[in-house]
């Protein structure tokens, strides 16, 4: 029995190794030296690393959705995107162009897949583990963009956009995007002021449910949406402290009782279901909240990515202004 096992194992291994012989790629001896395009690009990323490119990057891989959005908005079709399905559901402001390859999850992108794509630039955010960035550097130059910074979200967003634009030679497009965003802010601010909402209190949120417990995530003044709220002349009503990067805080239904008479826009997605019209609808605390009674709860349309780039923020502004001025 054992002998048989041994024999068959040997045969199997031999057969497999024969089948696995050969190469999938010629060795470097055979590979022709590729021609060097003129115009080197040198830039320093948000982690202080000097990144040198032979020219504007065209085969770009992005590991986070905000940088994916920036690329798409700049007119660069990324060749690799983390969690394509999730991006498609959560970010409709800048739909993917081309047919990018899925490189796995945002937290653990597959280095194998990225390497197989042979990109000439990988755009990552500071959320990616340093060990992984180190590995990616062997594959291609890596541009590390700051994911978020609660002290200056909009500046962080535009800086990231500029960095990516520089690396891909799309600086004009970046300027246009920033102008569009500013125009959108001015327009929104005016529309809100016209409706008498200048200085109105606002609390942007999202929520999720697990084991009968509803958790609500507060987009405090340190969050990107909170920062945009302020630019629109609104006042963030959250009193809870957000984290240092994303400016988010978690609370429960009770925690909403301190909010008072505010506007309460929230983000939900049909992929996950709507916590506020679902599990919370019958909750006595929720129903007793002044802004719920006053009908000031607004669901924002699906696909406004809360941590996205200028395009997402324009979509946020448009839908927010719509929701608040509708009455």
């Amino acid at each position, binding site marked *: 029995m054992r002998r048989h096992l041994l024999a068959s194992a040997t045969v199997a291994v031999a057969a497999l190794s024969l089948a696995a012989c050969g190469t*999938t*790629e010629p060795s470097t001896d055979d590979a022709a030296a590729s021609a060097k395009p003129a115009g080197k690009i040198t830039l320093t990323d948000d982690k202080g690393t000097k990144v040198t490119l032979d020219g504007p990057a065209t085969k770009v891989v992005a590991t986070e959705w905000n940088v994916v959005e920036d690329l798409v908005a700049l007119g660069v079709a990324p060749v690799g995107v983390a969690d394509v399905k999730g991006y498609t559901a959560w970010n409709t402001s800048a739909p993917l162009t081309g047919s990018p390859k899925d490189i796995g999850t945002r937290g653990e992108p597959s280095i194998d897949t990225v390497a197989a794509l042979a990109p000439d630039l990988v755009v990552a955010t500071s959320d990616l583990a340093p060990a992984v960035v180190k590995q990616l550097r062997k594959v291609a130059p890596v541009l590390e963009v700051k994911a978020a910074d609660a002290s200056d979200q909009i500046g962080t967003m535009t800086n990231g956009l500029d960095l990516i634009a520089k690396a891909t030679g799309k600086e004009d497009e970046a300027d246009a995007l920033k102008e569009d965003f500013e125009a959108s802010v001015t327009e929104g601010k005016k529309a809100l002021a016209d409706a008498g909402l200048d200085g109105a209190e606002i609390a942007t949120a999202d929520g999720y449910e697990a084991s009968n417990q509803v958790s609500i995530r507060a987009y405090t003044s340190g969050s990107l949406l909170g920062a945009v709220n302020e630019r629109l002349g609104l006042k963030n009503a959250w009193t809870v402290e957000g984290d240092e990067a994303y400016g988010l805080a978690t609370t429960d239904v*009770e925690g909403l009782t301190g909010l008072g008479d505010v506007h309460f826009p929230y983000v939900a997605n049909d992929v996950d279901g709507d916590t506020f019209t679902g599990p919370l609808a019958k909750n*006595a605390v929720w129903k007793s909240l002044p802004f719920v009674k006053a009908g000031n709860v607004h669901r924002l349309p699906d696909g406004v990515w809360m941590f996205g780039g200028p395009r997402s923020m324009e979509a946020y502004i448009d839908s927010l202004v719509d929701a608040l001025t509708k009455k």
Partner: protein
Amino acid sequence: MAVIDKTAVGRDRTAAATTGAVAVTATLVLLVAVLAAVDITQGTADVGASQVWDALTGNAEAGDASVVVASRLPRMVAAVLVGLALGMAGSALQAVSRNVLASPDTLAVNAGSYLALGVLAATGTTLPLLASSGAAFVGGLAAAAIVLGLSGLGRGTVRLVLAGSALALGLNAATEALLLLFPQQTEGLYAWNQGSVGQNGFDGVAQMAPVIAVGFVGLLLVARRVDALALGDDAARGLGVPVRGTRVTTVVLATLLSAAAVTLAGPIGFVGLCAPALVRPLARRFRGLVRSRLSMPVAGLVGAALVLLSDVLLRAVVPADTAVEVPTGVVTTVVGGVFLVVMALRARDTASAEAPDRLRIPGRTAFLVTVVVLAVVLVGVMVAAVLLGDSKLLLGDVVNWAQGRAGRVVTFVLDTRVPRVTAALLAGAALALSGTLVQAVTRNPLAEPGILGVSGGAGLGAVLLVTTVEAPGSWAVAGAAFGGAAVTASVVFGLAARSGFGQNKLVLLGVGVSAAAAALISLVIVLSDPFDTTRALTWLSGSTYGRNMPDVVPVAVVLAVGIVLAVVRRRELDLVALDEDTPRLLGLGLPRARLGFLVAAVLLSSTAVAAAGTIGFVGLVAPHAARALVGRRHVRVVPVSVLLGALLVCLADLAGRTVIAPAQLGAGLMTAVIGAPYFVYLLVRTRR
């Protein structure tokens, strides 16, 4: 006259016992009431004691009243119900299996229920709560049936827990795998594999309360028969108690209770194990508590007090808003783990070592064939692991790469893949060797770095360093892991050594410490970086993702030293594993030998954890399987076990990298998913 006197004394005793038991019950009810009162004054809204009082007396503003009614009271009631259900269930399971380690946790009931709920969530099925609890019940019952069926009721303490914890690990791994496969649908608290008693209104409580009531009353009704079972199956039959029927009924009712608790709040760890353990010493003082009819509800009360206490402590220590993010289960597990350690120390019961499994002793040829086959298979898996992945390579690519003349893509792929394969191989081998050493030293087939909390401590040490220091080096991580492992190992082994390594005591200590360590890892990550579940999963379930070559150097060095040590000291290992007296007779310094092997084992598992996260199961399965294959002499067990460990983790890593590529599953999840069925098979085989 004398006869009459005796009865009088007997009656007095019974009366005293009943009074004592009633006093205990009353005290516990009071304790639960006080804790409940404190609990409802805590929360994120600005509603303190006086507002709660106003609300309860009907004088509060509408807002405050609704907070109390829709948030505080449901949470408090849920905590009481969950604690009650789990405490009762644990007590009943322990009584019916005559096993102090039986509980919804160790019988995999919670894990089964949780997996069933996870499947529902992942498939996007939204059922009414009662139907979900039905699914949870089925899942829990199936798990309990497998565990009890395999181990045989009341047939051996260790065996039962062996089967139960193996299955629980496997099921939890499956749930975590689901979480990774369907991240959108299963977001939130699922990430922590820990439950929380917070409630959205009274709906959940109102629907689950009748279910819990059914279980409660049902258990009280069978309590008398359960007591008869304690006398032994034959005696019980002699009293006319249907043994089989009683067992089945009790297990079903206990499962019902735990399924309801899991549906209501997710898995709240350890309450079912701790509550009865706390009642037992009470029962020694107050004899009335010996009877199940009383001891089961009392265990329920203790359970309720435990859950409430955890909730109260959490909200008292952590700011209200942060407390929302910390699952209650994390706290009960830490509290429960500590309690378990204390109880294990107090307990006089240290079941003697089981007779070693009867194993055939295969000949030299069989051993050599086994080693060769394993080595060949391992080489095959290694080759496959290097070639397979998101991009498939061929052997010629590897040859080119080794000679440094591979093309761009091949170089990139292999540069990142080879360290992962190496990490998996070495970590697996190190964990297997560590398990072999620990099992030999403790003479305990259950002892394993994972179950004994050594891996957990290593993970905790590493996580503490990783969350506080920006980008620490590989040796620093390994050092921190060793520090954590050394602490937990000294606690577990030190305390166990004081009582001569009693089987139950050691495992009990280890289970407590390892669960507490895992919960603390969750806690550290929740508090430091609540939105980074990837990191949490890496440290809780093991992964070779993102490993570079320098990361595997520590484990490689330690493994080399460890293997040399094990080979040179193979005879001492055999003697230590034999019994207490033989080594002494032969002039071997037992304590020193033990300490040496244990230090080696801790070093091995902590460097393995630093290289690949907390990978469970390997240290349990590999030595066990090795002994089954080649007998118990360590000159044979060590190489076979090391090969098996390397094979298992390498295979797990390969599967984890390829099954859902480009997304990844942790190697630890895969070892559990692969290891659990294997282990179950092993149990079935040895049952004959």
